[in-house]
Protein backbone atom coordinates (compact mmCIF):
# COMPACT_ATOMS: atom_id res chain seq x y z
CA UNK A 1 0.00 0.00 0.00
CA UNK A 2 2.71 2.46 1.09
CA UNK A 3 4.90 1.13 -1.71
CA UNK A 4 2.19 1.97 -4.24
CA UNK A 5 0.83 5.30 -3.05
CA UNK A 6 3.52 6.90 -0.89
CA UNK A 7 6.69 5.60 -2.49
CA UNK A 8 9.58 7.79 -1.23
CA UNK A 9 11.90 6.95 -4.12
CA UNK A 10 9.25 7.89 -6.67
CA UNK A 11 8.38 11.04 -4.74
CA UNK A 12 11.99 12.16 -4.97
CA UNK A 13 12.15 11.45 -8.67
CA UNK A 14 8.77 13.03 -9.46
CA UNK A 15 9.15 16.09 -7.26
CA UNK A 16 10.72 18.43 -9.90
CA UNK A 17 8.03 17.48 -12.44
CA UNK A 18 5.19 17.95 -9.96
CA UNK A 19 6.68 21.24 -8.79
CA UNK A 20 6.71 22.57 -12.36
CA UNK A 21 3.04 21.62 -12.55
CA UNK A 22 2.28 23.42 -9.31
CA UNK A 23 3.87 26.64 -10.58
CA UNK A 24 1.94 26.40 -13.81
CA UNK A 25 -1.32 25.85 -11.92
CA UNK A 26 -0.64 28.96 -9.83
CA UNK A 27 0.28 30.93 -12.95
CA UNK A 28 -2.80 29.68 -14.81
CA UNK A 29 -5.03 30.62 -11.85
CA UNK A 30 -3.50 34.10 -11.71
CA UNK A 31 -4.51 34.54 -15.35
CA UNK A 32 -7.95 32.92 -15.48
CA UNK A 33 -9.34 34.31 -12.21
CA UNK A 34 -8.91 37.98 -13.25
CA UNK A 35 -10.23 37.06 -16.72
CA UNK A 36 -13.36 35.53 -15.18
CA UNK A 37 -13.81 38.48 -12.82
CA UNK A 38 -13.53 40.86 -15.74
CA UNK A 39 -16.07 38.89 -17.77
CA UNK A 40 -18.43 38.79 -14.79
CA UNK A 41 -18.11 42.50 -14.14
CA UNK A 42 -18.89 43.31 -17.77
CA UNK A 43 -22.00 41.08 -17.66
CA UNK A 44 -23.20 42.55 -14.36
CA UNK A 45 -22.69 46.14 -15.52
CA UNK A 46 -24.60 45.40 -18.71
CA UNK A 47 -27.37 43.79 -16.64
CA UNK A 48 -27.65 46.93 -14.52
CA UNK A 49 -29.06 48.64 -17.61
CA UNK A 50 -32.57 47.58 -16.72
CA UNK A 51 -33.88 47.35 -20.24
CA UNK A 52 -35.60 44.14 -21.34
CA UNK A 53 -33.73 44.20 -24.65
CA UNK A 54 -30.47 44.01 -22.71
CA UNK A 55 -31.53 41.92 -19.76
CA UNK A 56 -33.13 38.99 -21.60
CA UNK A 57 -30.26 38.20 -23.97
CA UNK A 58 -27.87 38.51 -21.04
CA UNK A 59 -29.91 36.08 -18.98
CA UNK A 60 -29.95 33.65 -21.89
CA UNK A 61 -26.16 34.01 -22.26
CA UNK A 62 -25.56 33.34 -18.56
CA UNK A 63 -27.99 30.41 -18.42
CA UNK A 64 -26.41 28.88 -21.49
CA UNK A 65 -22.97 28.82 -19.96
CA UNK A 66 -24.34 27.64 -16.63
CA UNK A 67 -25.88 24.68 -18.45
CA UNK A 68 -22.86 23.92 -20.63
CA UNK A 69 -20.15 21.73 -19.06
CA UNK A 70 -16.82 23.59 -19.10
CA UNK A 71 -14.99 20.50 -20.37
CA UNK A 72 -17.31 20.31 -23.40
CA UNK A 73 -16.65 23.99 -24.11
CA UNK A 74 -12.92 23.38 -23.84
CA UNK A 75 -12.99 20.37 -26.17
CA UNK A 76 -15.16 22.28 -28.62
CA UNK A 77 -12.60 25.08 -28.80
CA UNK A 78 -9.59 22.77 -28.84
CA UNK A 79 -10.79 20.04 -31.19
CA UNK A 80 -13.64 21.76 -33.06
CA UNK A 81 -12.19 25.12 -34.05
CA UNK A 82 -9.27 23.70 -36.08
CA UNK A 83 -11.90 22.44 -38.57
CA UNK A 84 -12.80 26.09 -39.15
CA UNK A 85 -9.14 26.80 -39.82
CA UNK A 86 -8.54 28.33 -36.40
CA UNK A 87 -5.93 26.43 -34.42
CA UNK A 88 -5.53 27.76 -30.91
CA UNK A 89 -3.13 26.28 -28.38
CA UNK A 90 -4.37 24.50 -25.26
CA UNK A 91 -3.56 27.49 -23.15
CA UNK A 92 -5.53 29.96 -25.28
CA UNK A 93 -8.49 27.56 -25.30
CA UNK A 94 -8.44 27.33 -21.52
CA UNK A 95 -8.33 31.13 -21.25
CA UNK A 96 -11.30 31.60 -23.61
CA UNK A 97 -13.37 28.79 -22.07
CA UNK A 98 -12.78 30.13 -18.57
CA UNK A 99 -13.60 33.67 -19.63
CA UNK A 100 -16.96 32.45 -20.96
CA UNK A 101 -17.81 29.86 -18.33
CA UNK A 102 -16.54 31.34 -15.08
CA UNK A 103 -17.42 34.83 -16.30
CA UNK A 104 -21.07 33.79 -16.29
CA UNK A 105 -20.87 32.56 -12.71
CA UNK A 106 -19.03 35.67 -11.54
CA UNK A 107 -21.59 37.75 -13.46
CA UNK A 108 -24.48 36.22 -11.52
CA UNK A 109 -22.68 36.91 -8.25
CA UNK A 110 -21.91 40.55 -9.12
CA UNK A 111 -25.48 41.02 -10.31
CA UNK A 112 -26.85 39.73 -7.00
CA UNK A 113 -24.45 42.09 -5.23
CA UNK A 114 -25.57 45.09 -7.25
CA UNK A 115 -29.23 44.17 -6.67
CA UNK A 116 -28.56 44.00 -2.94
CA UNK A 117 -27.71 47.71 -2.77
CA UNK A 118 -30.95 49.63 -2.18
CA UNK A 119 -32.12 51.80 -5.10
CA UNK A 120 -32.36 54.78 -2.75
CA UNK A 121 -28.57 54.89 -2.60
CA UNK A 122 -28.26 55.39 -6.34
CA UNK A 123 -30.94 58.06 -6.22
CA UNK A 124 -29.16 59.83 -3.36
CA UNK A 125 -25.82 59.62 -5.17
CA UNK A 126 -27.34 60.91 -8.40
CA UNK A 127 -29.04 63.80 -6.60
CA UNK A 128 -25.68 64.94 -5.18
CA UNK A 129 -24.54 65.39 -8.77
CA UNK A 130 -22.69 62.11 -9.44
CA UNK A 131 -23.11 60.69 -12.93
CA UNK A 132 -24.54 57.18 -13.40
CA UNK A 133 -21.03 55.80 -13.88
CA UNK A 134 -19.70 57.59 -10.82
CA UNK A 135 -22.60 56.39 -8.68
CA UNK A 136 -21.95 52.82 -9.85
CA UNK A 137 -18.22 53.03 -9.27
CA UNK A 138 -18.05 54.85 -5.94
CA UNK A 139 -21.34 53.98 -4.26
CA UNK A 140 -22.86 50.75 -5.58
CA UNK A 141 -19.91 48.51 -6.54
CA UNK A 142 -17.91 48.78 -3.30
CA UNK A 143 -20.95 47.75 -1.25
CA UNK A 144 -22.02 45.15 -3.81
CA UNK A 145 -18.63 43.44 -3.72
CA UNK A 146 -18.57 43.46 0.08
CA UNK A 147 -22.05 41.91 0.24
CA UNK A 148 -21.14 38.98 -2.01
CA UNK A 149 -17.55 38.43 -0.83
CA UNK A 150 -18.19 34.84 0.38
CA UNK A 151 -19.73 33.90 -2.98
CA UNK A 152 -16.87 35.50 -4.90
CA UNK A 153 -14.35 33.59 -2.82
CA UNK A 154 -16.27 30.35 -3.20
CA UNK A 155 -16.42 30.74 -6.96
CA UNK A 156 -12.72 31.56 -7.10
CA UNK A 157 -12.00 28.32 -5.27
CA UNK A 158 -14.02 26.46 -7.91
CA UNK A 159 -12.11 28.24 -10.69
CA UNK A 160 -8.74 27.23 -9.26
CA UNK A 161 -9.95 23.63 -8.99
CA UNK A 162 -11.25 23.83 -12.54
CA UNK A 163 -7.79 24.66 -13.91
CA UNK A 164 -7.20 20.88 -13.63
CA UNK A 165 -9.25 20.58 -16.84
CA UNK A 166 -6.23 22.07 -18.60
CA UNK A 167 -4.68 18.59 -18.37
CA UNK A 168 -7.16 17.35 -20.99
CA UNK A 169 -5.79 19.79 -23.61
CA UNK A 170 -2.13 19.26 -22.64
CA UNK A 171 -1.65 22.42 -20.61
CA UNK A 172 1.23 21.40 -18.31
CA UNK A 173 -0.49 22.18 -15.01
CA UNK A 174 -0.36 20.15 -11.79
CA UNK A 175 -2.61 17.26 -12.77
CA UNK A 176 -1.06 16.98 -16.25
CA UNK A 177 2.48 16.86 -14.90
CA UNK A 178 1.47 14.36 -12.22
CA UNK A 179 -0.04 12.07 -14.85
CA UNK A 180 3.10 12.39 -16.97
CA UNK A 181 5.18 11.40 -13.96
CA UNK A 182 2.80 8.51 -13.28
CA UNK A 183 3.10 7.12 -16.78
CA UNK A 184 6.91 7.34 -16.64
CA UNK A 185 7.22 5.68 -13.23
CA UNK A 186 4.30 3.22 -13.50
CA UNK A 187 3.27 4.25 -10.00
CA UNK A 188 0.33 6.34 -8.77
CA UNK A 189 2.44 8.19 -6.16
CA UNK A 190 2.75 11.38 -8.29
CA UNK A 191 -1.06 11.66 -8.52
CA UNK A 192 -1.31 11.25 -4.76
CA UNK A 193 1.30 14.02 -4.48
CA UNK A 194 -0.77 16.28 -6.71
CA UNK A 195 -3.90 15.57 -4.65
CA UNK A 196 -2.04 16.35 -1.40
CA UNK A 197 -0.73 19.61 -2.90
CA UNK A 198 -4.22 20.68 -4.03
CA UNK A 199 -5.54 19.87 -0.57
CA UNK A 200 -2.83 21.78 1.30
CA UNK A 201 -3.20 24.72 -1.06
CA UNK A 202 -6.99 24.98 -0.88
CA UNK A 203 -7.87 23.68 2.57
CA UNK A 204 -7.38 27.06 4.30
CA UNK A 205 -9.75 28.63 1.78
CA UNK A 206 -12.37 25.92 2.39
CA UNK A 207 -12.13 26.43 6.18
CA UNK A 208 -12.57 30.18 5.83
CA UNK A 209 -15.48 29.71 3.43
CA UNK A 210 -17.34 27.26 5.58
CA UNK A 211 -17.23 29.82 8.43
CA UNK A 212 -18.42 32.67 6.20
CA UNK A 213 -21.21 30.55 4.69
CA UNK A 214 -22.52 29.35 8.03
CA UNK A 215 -22.66 32.91 9.22
CA UNK A 216 -24.33 34.16 6.03
CA UNK A 217 -27.05 31.50 6.00
CA UNK A 218 -27.74 31.84 9.73
CA UNK A 219 -27.95 35.63 9.35
CA UNK A 220 -30.63 35.32 6.67
CA UNK A 221 -33.39 34.64 9.14
Amino acid at each position, binding site marked *: *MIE*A*FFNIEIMKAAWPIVLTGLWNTILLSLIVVPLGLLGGLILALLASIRHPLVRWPLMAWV*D*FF*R*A*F*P*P*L*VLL*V*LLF*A*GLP*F*AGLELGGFACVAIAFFLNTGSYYGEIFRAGIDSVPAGQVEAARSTGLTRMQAMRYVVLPQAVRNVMPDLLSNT*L*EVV*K*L*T*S*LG*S*VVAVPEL*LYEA*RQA*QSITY*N*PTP*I*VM*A*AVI*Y*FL*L*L*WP*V*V*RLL*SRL*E*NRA*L*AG*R*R
Partner: protein
Amino acid sequence: MSGWDKFVETFFNAKVMVKYLPDILSGVVVTIELALLIVVTGLGAGLALALLRSLAIRPLNWLIVFTVDLFRSLPPLVIIVLMYFGLPYAGPAPSGFVSTWLSLAFVLMAFSEEIFWAGITSIPKGQWEAARSTGLSFGQTLFNVVLPQAFRLTIPPLTNRTIAITKGTALGTVVAVTEILGQASSAMSNSYNPSPLMMGAAAYVVLFLPVVVAARWIETRFAWKR
Protein backbone atom coordinates in the same frame (compact mmCIF):
# COMPACT_ATOMS: atom_id res chain seq x y z
CA MET B 1 -18.95 26.39 -52.73
CA SER B 2 -19.50 29.53 -50.70
CA GLY B 3 -17.93 29.99 -47.28
CA TRP B 4 -21.24 29.47 -45.54
CA ASP B 5 -21.97 26.21 -47.33
CA LYS B 6 -18.53 24.98 -46.44
CA PHE B 7 -19.10 25.90 -42.81
CA VAL B 8 -22.41 24.03 -42.69
CA GLU B 9 -20.87 21.08 -44.55
CA THR B 10 -18.11 20.91 -41.94
CA PHE B 11 -19.89 21.55 -38.67
CA PHE B 12 -23.43 20.39 -39.45
CA ASN B 13 -22.84 17.63 -41.95
CA ALA B 14 -26.18 15.83 -42.30
CA LYS B 15 -24.67 12.52 -43.43
CA VAL B 16 -22.28 12.36 -40.50
CA MET B 17 -24.99 13.43 -38.11
CA VAL B 18 -27.41 10.73 -39.19
CA LYS B 19 -24.69 8.11 -38.98
CA TYR B 20 -23.61 9.00 -35.44
CA LEU B 21 -26.98 9.95 -33.95
CA PRO B 22 -27.43 6.52 -32.29
CA ASP B 23 -24.00 6.83 -30.64
CA ILE B 24 -24.81 10.27 -29.25
CA LEU B 25 -28.20 9.05 -28.02
CA SER B 26 -26.61 6.13 -26.20
CA GLY B 27 -24.25 8.71 -24.68
CA VAL B 28 -27.26 10.71 -23.52
CA VAL B 29 -28.64 7.63 -21.76
CA VAL B 30 -25.33 7.05 -19.97
CA THR B 31 -25.11 10.72 -18.96
CA ILE B 32 -28.64 10.64 -17.52
CA GLU B 33 -27.97 7.40 -15.62
CA LEU B 34 -24.75 8.81 -14.22
CA ALA B 35 -26.36 12.13 -13.31
CA LEU B 36 -29.31 10.53 -11.51
CA LEU B 37 -27.04 8.17 -9.58
CA ILE B 38 -24.81 11.06 -8.51
CA VAL B 39 -27.72 13.26 -7.42
CA VAL B 40 -29.53 10.54 -5.44
CA THR B 41 -26.49 9.07 -3.69
CA GLY B 42 -24.66 12.40 -3.24
CA LEU B 43 -27.60 14.27 -1.70
CA GLY B 44 -28.62 11.22 0.36
CA ALA B 45 -25.13 10.81 1.80
CA GLY B 46 -24.87 14.57 2.42
CA LEU B 47 -28.13 14.63 4.35
CA ALA B 48 -27.13 11.52 6.32
CA LEU B 49 -23.82 13.16 7.31
CA ALA B 50 -25.56 16.38 8.35
CA LEU B 51 -28.01 14.39 10.52
CA LEU B 52 -25.14 12.42 12.07
CA ARG B 53 -23.41 15.71 12.78
CA SER B 54 -26.47 17.02 14.63
CA LEU B 55 -25.98 14.24 17.21
CA ALA B 56 -22.94 16.28 18.33
CA ILE B 57 -20.52 13.40 18.93
CA ARG B 58 -17.15 15.18 18.99
CA PRO B 59 -14.72 12.74 17.33
CA LEU B 60 -17.35 11.79 14.75
CA ASN B 61 -17.93 15.44 13.89
CA TRP B 62 -14.23 16.07 13.38
CA LEU B 63 -14.16 13.15 10.98
CA ILE B 64 -17.20 14.48 9.10
CA VAL B 65 -15.76 18.00 8.86
CA PHE B 66 -12.43 16.64 7.61
CA THR B 67 -14.12 14.47 4.96
CA VAL B 68 -16.21 17.40 3.79
CA ASP B 69 -13.18 19.70 3.64
CA LEU B 70 -11.20 17.08 1.74
CA PHE B 71 -13.80 16.70 -1.00
CA ARG B 72 -14.38 20.42 -1.21
CA SER B 73 -10.71 21.19 -1.79
CA LEU B 74 -9.83 18.48 -4.29
CA PRO B 75 -10.68 19.10 -7.96
CA PRO B 76 -13.23 16.46 -9.09
CA LEU B 77 -11.03 15.45 -12.02
CA VAL B 78 -8.15 14.70 -9.63
CA ILE B 79 -10.42 12.43 -7.55
CA ILE B 80 -11.64 10.63 -10.67
CA VAL B 81 -8.12 10.13 -12.01
CA LEU B 82 -6.87 8.95 -8.63
CA MET B 83 -9.68 6.43 -8.33
CA TYR B 84 -9.41 5.12 -11.88
CA PHE B 85 -5.64 5.07 -12.38
CA GLY B 86 -4.55 4.80 -8.75
CA LEU B 87 -6.88 2.36 -6.95
CA PRO B 88 -6.04 -0.63 -9.18
CA TYR B 89 -2.54 -0.62 -7.66
CA ALA B 90 -4.16 -1.35 -4.28
CA GLY B 91 -6.48 -4.08 -5.52
CA PRO B 92 -9.99 -2.95 -6.55
CA ALA B 93 -10.19 -1.67 -10.11
CA PRO B 94 -13.38 0.37 -10.49
CA SER B 95 -14.61 0.99 -14.02
CA GLY B 96 -14.62 4.50 -15.47
CA PHE B 97 -18.36 4.72 -14.84
CA VAL B 98 -18.03 3.71 -11.20
CA SER B 99 -15.02 6.01 -10.67
CA THR B 100 -16.88 9.00 -12.07
CA TRP B 101 -20.06 8.18 -10.18
CA LEU B 102 -18.37 7.70 -6.80
CA SER B 103 -16.04 10.69 -7.19
CA LEU B 104 -18.79 13.15 -8.09
CA ALA B 105 -21.14 11.64 -5.48
CA PHE B 106 -18.47 12.24 -2.81
CA VAL B 107 -18.06 15.83 -3.99
CA LEU B 108 -21.82 16.44 -3.96
CA MET B 109 -22.03 14.76 -0.55
CA ALA B 110 -19.43 17.18 0.83
CA PHE B 111 -21.08 20.31 -0.57
CA SER B 112 -24.61 19.27 0.35
CA GLU B 113 -23.62 18.24 3.90
CA GLU B 114 -22.23 21.75 4.35
CA ILE B 115 -25.46 23.31 3.05
CA PHE B 116 -27.81 21.01 5.02
CA TRP B 117 -25.79 21.62 8.15
CA ALA B 118 -25.92 25.39 7.71
CA GLY B 119 -29.68 25.05 7.29
CA ILE B 120 -30.06 22.98 10.46
CA THR B 121 -27.91 25.33 12.55
CA SER B 122 -29.83 28.34 11.26
CA ILE B 123 -32.90 27.20 13.23
CA PRO B 124 -32.77 29.03 16.59
CA LYS B 125 -32.07 26.93 19.67
CA GLY B 126 -35.32 28.15 21.23
CA GLN B 127 -37.28 26.12 18.69
CA TRP B 128 -35.48 22.94 19.71
CA GLU B 129 -36.16 23.68 23.36
CA ALA B 130 -39.78 24.57 22.77
CA ALA B 131 -40.38 21.42 20.72
CA ARG B 132 -38.65 19.17 23.24
CA SER B 133 -40.58 20.73 26.13
CA THR B 134 -43.90 19.92 24.46
CA GLY B 135 -42.85 16.28 24.66
CA LEU B 136 -41.48 15.69 21.14
CA SER B 137 -38.50 13.34 20.97
CA PHE B 138 -35.14 14.37 19.46
CA GLY B 139 -36.05 12.64 16.21
CA GLN B 140 -39.52 14.16 16.06
CA THR B 141 -38.11 17.63 16.68
CA LEU B 142 -35.53 17.14 13.95
CA PHE B 143 -37.91 15.77 11.34
CA ASN B 144 -41.09 17.73 12.10
CA VAL B 145 -39.77 21.09 13.29
CA VAL B 146 -36.21 21.73 12.21
CA LEU B 147 -35.78 20.01 8.84
CA PRO B 148 -38.88 21.45 7.12
CA GLN B 149 -37.64 24.97 7.86
CA ALA B 150 -34.02 24.12 7.11
CA PHE B 151 -34.90 22.64 3.72
CA ARG B 152 -36.54 25.82 2.55
CA LEU B 153 -33.41 27.77 3.31
CA THR B 154 -31.13 25.28 1.60
CA ILE B 155 -32.97 24.83 -1.67
CA PRO B 156 -31.47 27.67 -3.74
CA PRO B 157 -27.79 26.97 -2.91
CA LEU B 158 -28.44 23.24 -3.17
CA THR B 159 -29.93 23.34 -6.69
CA ASN B 160 -27.05 25.47 -7.98
CA ARG B 161 -24.42 23.19 -6.52
CA THR B 162 -26.18 20.07 -7.73
CA ILE B 163 -26.29 21.35 -11.30
CA ALA B 164 -22.64 22.41 -11.26
CA ILE B 165 -21.53 18.99 -10.02
CA THR B 166 -23.85 17.00 -12.28
CA LYS B 167 -22.41 18.78 -15.32
CA GLY B 168 -19.14 17.17 -14.24
CA THR B 169 -20.34 13.88 -15.73
CA ALA B 170 -18.50 15.10 -18.85
CA LEU B 171 -15.26 14.50 -16.93
CA GLY B 172 -16.00 10.78 -17.29
CA THR B 173 -14.60 11.07 -20.82
CA VAL B 174 -11.10 11.22 -19.35
CA VAL B 175 -11.56 7.73 -17.88
CA ALA B 176 -13.28 6.29 -20.97
CA VAL B 177 -16.92 6.52 -19.88
CA THR B 178 -19.11 6.37 -22.98
CA GLU B 179 -21.22 9.39 -22.01
CA ILE B 180 -22.12 12.20 -24.43
CA LEU B 181 -18.72 13.86 -24.70
CA GLY B 182 -16.93 10.52 -24.93
CA GLN B 183 -19.21 9.29 -27.72
CA ALA B 184 -18.96 12.63 -29.55
CA SER B 185 -15.16 12.70 -29.34
CA SER B 186 -14.69 9.19 -30.66
CA ALA B 187 -17.27 9.78 -33.41
CA MET B 188 -15.36 12.92 -34.35
CA SER B 189 -12.05 11.12 -34.66
CA ASN B 190 -13.67 8.28 -36.62
CA SER B 191 -15.39 10.56 -39.10
CA TYR B 192 -12.74 13.27 -39.06
CA ASN B 193 -15.59 15.75 -38.85
CA PRO B 194 -16.70 17.97 -35.95
CA SER B 195 -20.45 17.48 -36.52
CA PRO B 196 -20.76 14.79 -33.79
CA LEU B 197 -19.19 17.22 -31.35
CA MET B 198 -21.78 19.84 -32.26
CA MET B 199 -24.50 17.24 -31.68
CA GLY B 200 -22.99 16.39 -28.32
CA ALA B 201 -22.88 20.06 -27.38
CA ALA B 202 -26.52 20.43 -28.40
CA ALA B 203 -27.43 17.37 -26.32
CA TYR B 204 -25.90 18.96 -23.21
CA VAL B 205 -27.87 22.15 -23.81
CA VAL B 206 -31.13 20.22 -24.29
CA LEU B 207 -30.43 18.21 -21.15
CA PHE B 208 -29.20 20.92 -18.77
CA LEU B 209 -30.76 24.19 -19.93
CA PRO B 210 -34.27 23.30 -18.66
CA VAL B 211 -32.71 22.39 -15.30
CA VAL B 212 -30.89 25.73 -15.09
CA VAL B 213 -34.05 27.64 -16.00
CA ALA B 214 -36.02 25.66 -13.42
CA ALA B 215 -33.34 26.44 -10.85
CA ARG B 216 -33.65 30.13 -11.58
CA TRP B 217 -37.39 29.87 -10.99
CA ILE B 218 -36.88 27.94 -7.75
CA GLU B 219 -34.37 30.56 -6.63
CA THR B 220 -36.92 33.37 -6.87
CA ARG B 221 -39.73 31.17 -5.53
CA PHE B 222 -37.86 30.20 -2.37
CA ALA B 223 -35.97 33.45 -1.83
CA TRP B 224 -36.45 35.04 1.55
CA LYS B 225 -38.09 38.40 1.25
CA ARG B 226 -35.84 41.12 2.54
